[in-house]
């Protein structure tokens, strides 16, 4: 059953058709990859899903409820978390504080005036954050200021911040870009483990085909804002249209 269903979504930026009649179904507990050349409209599609952009037409339904017209924080509270293409973290705060914020957001909702509790007394939240940091191998960096970390670490932190919310749908926009080889492998393992243990639905945009073929069960190829094909990884690999449009220039 599809947990996310995108139907006939169009988005124009001036004369540019960034998304043209996009249809996409993401089944529950699967990993769905969206690939395509630069400028294909992949990030734009995610922007529509998280409420950053409102499409010109079409519908987006998550878990039986329409997403369109909802504010980003409402969509997140529905259970959609997103890792951005350029890391969006709280750069001035420590790693631990970065982790606690999504923990509080999950527990307390969009707003709560909890001005008299001490953070250090929130042992449940701290434990949760620590467990997640441990899973991404960042526990030793917990007191570091987020801005002082490498790009790969910032990405892993952002991923941990999304995962600790236990979202039902995780959107990943090139999560391994800028990561060292070993970190990429670790990230693949982490995502696999989490999917196995917790049954997480993921939509992933990725240029690294190694990552795509290790994780994805379905792949949609997007070119110039329109889905070319949607199929299993095996079929996509050999698909002539895909080779022509995209894989020719990628590292298979």
């Amino acid at each position, binding site marked *: 059953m599809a947990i996310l269903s995108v139907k006939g979504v169009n988005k124009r930026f001036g004369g540019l058709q960034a998304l043209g009649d996009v249809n996409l179904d993401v089944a529950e507990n699967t990993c769905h990859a969206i690939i395509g050349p630069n400028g294909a409209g992949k990030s734009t599609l995610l922007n529509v899903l998280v409420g950053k952009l409102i499409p010109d037409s079409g519908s987006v339904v998550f878990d039986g409820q329409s997403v369109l017209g909802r504010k980003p924080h409402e969509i997140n509270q529905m259970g959609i978390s997103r890792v951005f293409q350029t890391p*969006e973290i709280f750069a001035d705060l420590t790693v631990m*504080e970065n982790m606690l914020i999504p923990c509080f957001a999950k527990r307390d909702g969009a707003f709560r005036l909890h001005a008299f509790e001490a953070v250090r007394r929130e042992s449940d939240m701290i434990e949760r954050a620590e467990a997640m940091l441990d*899973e991404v191998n960042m526990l030793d960096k917990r007191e570091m200021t987020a801005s002082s970390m490498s790009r790969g670490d910032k990405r892993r932190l952002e991923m941990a911040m999304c995962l600790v919310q236990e979202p039902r749908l995780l959107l990943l926009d090139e999560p391994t870009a800028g990561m060292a080889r070993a970190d990429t492998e670790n990230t693949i393992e982490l995502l696999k483990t989490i999917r196995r*243990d917790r*049954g997480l639905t993921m939509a992933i945009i990725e240029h690294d085909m190694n990552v795509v073929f290790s994780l994805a069960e379905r792949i949609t190829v997007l070119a110039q804002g329109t889905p070319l094909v949607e199929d299993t990884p095996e079929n996509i690999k050999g698909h002539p249209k895909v080779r022509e449009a995209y894989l020719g220039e990628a590292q298979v």
Partner: protein
Amino acid sequence: MTDQSHSTAPLSVQQAATRNAPLARPRAGRGVLGLTRRDATLMLVVTVLVVFAPFILNPFPETSALAQFNAGYPDLMQRFVIFGIFAIGFNILFGLTGYLSFGHAAFLGVGSYAAIWSMKLITLNVIPGILFAIIVAGLFSLVVGFISLRRSGIYFSILTLAFAQMSYALAYSVLTPITGGETGLQIKNTDTPLFGGPESGIGRANLFGAEMGNSTELELGNWLFTFNLGYYIAGAALLLAFYLSIRIFRSPFGIMLRAVKSNQQRMNYTGLMPKRYTLSAFVISGMFAGLAGGLMVAMDTQVGPERMFWTASGEVVIMTILGGAGTLLGPVLGAGFIKYMENIISKINKDILHQWFAFLPDGMEDVMVAVVYPFIGKGWHLTLGIMFMLVVIFLPGGLVEGGQRIAAKFRRNKTQD
């Protein structure tokens, strides 16, 4: 929108292995009053400073030439703590969220008007007056904040400035029936509060009969120390304000406010409403300003519109930045520093300078006086301006950062020895 029914399997607990390693977990020490040991120490230091201020601020004997540097008289000590409260509140907004309000004096002014009306109509007791000041300033800041927070950055600052100047202009003109216009409001013997009116002449505020101006003096040799009731009441309010500020800084709410400053986008996509957090901080800081305004009226039962003028709003910005925005102690230090300069340095005149440099040969003496004179007396603004520029350029963390750097140097020297 808090749909939390969908949590799947609990977090896998494979952290047990690493948990055994001695991690740098924050010391979850018990502390006092819900504070960590460090914060409790800070609180204690500030308490000691407030309680013993009449001694600390009067280090020079009355008869010495340095007596003019004594700041331990009630009027000035009251100003130290009242502006300290004002700056502590401002810092909760500006220091944590980064939203620079240029109109906070409006809340202080509104608090003052509210307090004096409470005294005119209800009672000369300061407690209802101060509570009323906090409530009215809070409501006013809710309205101003709600509108101003539709914009951020410089536009937010301009909106708050516009509101404050509007309040000032209205208090001056159209609202004269409520504000007394240019002359402002005092408590006169024609006022008939519900509970006990002023006996004669200008009414003075009291706390269950004890007037704010009541003082006890202590003479020790050549020293004279004054203990003033009004000062101690304002001091108690400062301690409460400081305590609340520590609690807010260390709370989840405090982290959220810092998150607002850091990345509102990420907050949105993490399911949070940054604007609500900012508005809460705005109202809290408005209430602190109201408390300060109420205390001003309690100490000196009069108020005029100039209290809301834009320079007054600018002053609290300078206090906070000079002391160290975003630090706990900074605003208090900044407020004390500026009020000290305004009241002490500004009183030094040419004759005093001549006395100081009398030991120099005549020609040199005149040169030195000519060099120093622009920086003191009426020129204290120049000194303040230069200091402010130096701090902003070289010590972005304010005086607190300066203190920390000096402390760090000392520590390093010690380990080298």
